[in-house]
């Protein structure tokens, strides 16, 4: 059974309500339809309800599979605004929120913020930047983190690590050059994401060209500073470093290079790159030479699960990402 099969099976046990503000998009509607009819989620299409229903019928779907929410339903909108503005720590007031809710993406996120859906899934018509910005202002950031980032899950043939052939890596997609606070945030978010998605006990390594002070200079200092912040903020998590890649994931190398107690060295299941140059190159090396399947990137750092997908993604990939986001949301409960 592949990791994705396992995640799909988990989704079926507790299907979550997922809001789709891009239901008019044919690929998105198909992915939402398949994910719902196969029992992984309950899809809520957000937009012009009559248009969405007509499109579903025109495309040959059973229109009753979806729940439709009309963004012009003033009574529901007023109800959402009242609930949202009553939440603690929300910044937008009634008038500003009302204006923003003319946008389907932000309407869907307000529904999620008040608990009417568990996930908002978008990104096929909206850009990643649109999704992140809407998420930051409507859903908000997790109080333990400073930045939105991403994590990917690699399934690597012939690799036998502490989670079999699986390894989580981040950030390979969002944060270009994180400062120590932001790098610490990426590590903390990654631990929470993998706990909620696969139930892992995180063993998170801060990756560097140096292991435990074998190198010196500003590149090492940044990773060390990030490690100290992460350990101070979340002493309950096993986050350790700074480690070279081999010292992080190979027990024999760790035994030689890390001369102290560490639950992470040689046993890491999550790797945190020092910046996006490393992260982007790293994931491509794993895919190219390791022939790995890389799932994600999964956005992390929000108060709730917000999911983005590539604008060029095929239906099968969109469906996979929808199901992953639903399982993450269920895992956070």
């Amino acid at each position: 059974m592949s990791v994705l099969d396992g995640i799909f099976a988990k989704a079926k046990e507790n299907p979550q309500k997922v809001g789709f503000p891009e239901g008019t998009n044919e690929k998105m509607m198909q992915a939402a339809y398949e994910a719902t009819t196969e029992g992984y989620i309950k899809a809520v299409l957000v937009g012009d309800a009559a248009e969405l229903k007509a499109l579903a019928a025109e495309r040959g779907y059973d229109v009753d599979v979806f729940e439709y929410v009309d963004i012009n339903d003033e009574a529901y909108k007023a109800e959402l605004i009242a609930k949202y503005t009553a939440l603690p720590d929300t910044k937008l007031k009634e008038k500003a929120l009302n204006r923003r809710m003319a946008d389907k993406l932000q309407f869907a996120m307000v529904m999620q913020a008040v608990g009417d859906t568990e996930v908002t899934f978008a990104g096929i018509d909206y850009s990643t930047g649109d999704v992140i910005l809407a998420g930051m202002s409507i859903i908000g950031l997790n109080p333990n983190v400073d930045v939105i980032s991403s994590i990917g899950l690699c399934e690597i043939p012939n690799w036998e690590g502490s989670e079999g052939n699986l390894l989580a890596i981040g950030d390979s997609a969002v944060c270009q050059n994180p400062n120590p606070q932001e790098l610490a945030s990426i590590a903390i978010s990654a631990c929470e994401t993998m706990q909620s998605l696969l139930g892992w006990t995180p063993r998170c390594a801060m990756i560097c060209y140096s292991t435990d002070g074998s190198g010196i200079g500003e590149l090492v200092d940044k990773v060390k500073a990030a490690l100290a912040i992460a350990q101070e903020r979340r002493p309950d998590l096993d986050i350790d470093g700074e480690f070279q890649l081999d010292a992080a994931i190979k027990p024999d190398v760790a035994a030689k290079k890390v001369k102290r107690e560490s639950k992470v060295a040689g046993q890491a299941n999550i790797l945190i790159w020092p910046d996006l140059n490393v992260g982007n190159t790293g994931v491509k090396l794993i895919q190219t030479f390791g022939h790995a399947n890389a799932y994600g990137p999964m956005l992390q750092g929000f108060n709730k699960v917000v999911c983005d997908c590539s604008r060029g993604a095929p239906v099968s990939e969109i469906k996979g990402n929808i199901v992953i986001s639903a399982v993450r949301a269920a895992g956070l409960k």
Partner: protein
Amino acid sequence: MDRKELEAQVLELVATSYNKDVDDLSVETKFKEDLGGASVLMVGLISEIENELDVTIQLQVAAACETIGDLCDKIEEEM
């Protein structure tokens, strides 16, 4: 609202969003150098501007402003 009133109000909103003393801020204050420039704080500031001044400023537009005065210019254009 004249320019002076707008500047005074924006300075108050920046002080709230960035957790600073308004007396330490001026239209010359630079977001990146003087305030740290975290994008999450800028998102909060934009929300406050929407709430209090009824003006929608895109994050990309606000993020491109070097100083608080530059942001006031952008708000004025939208008013």
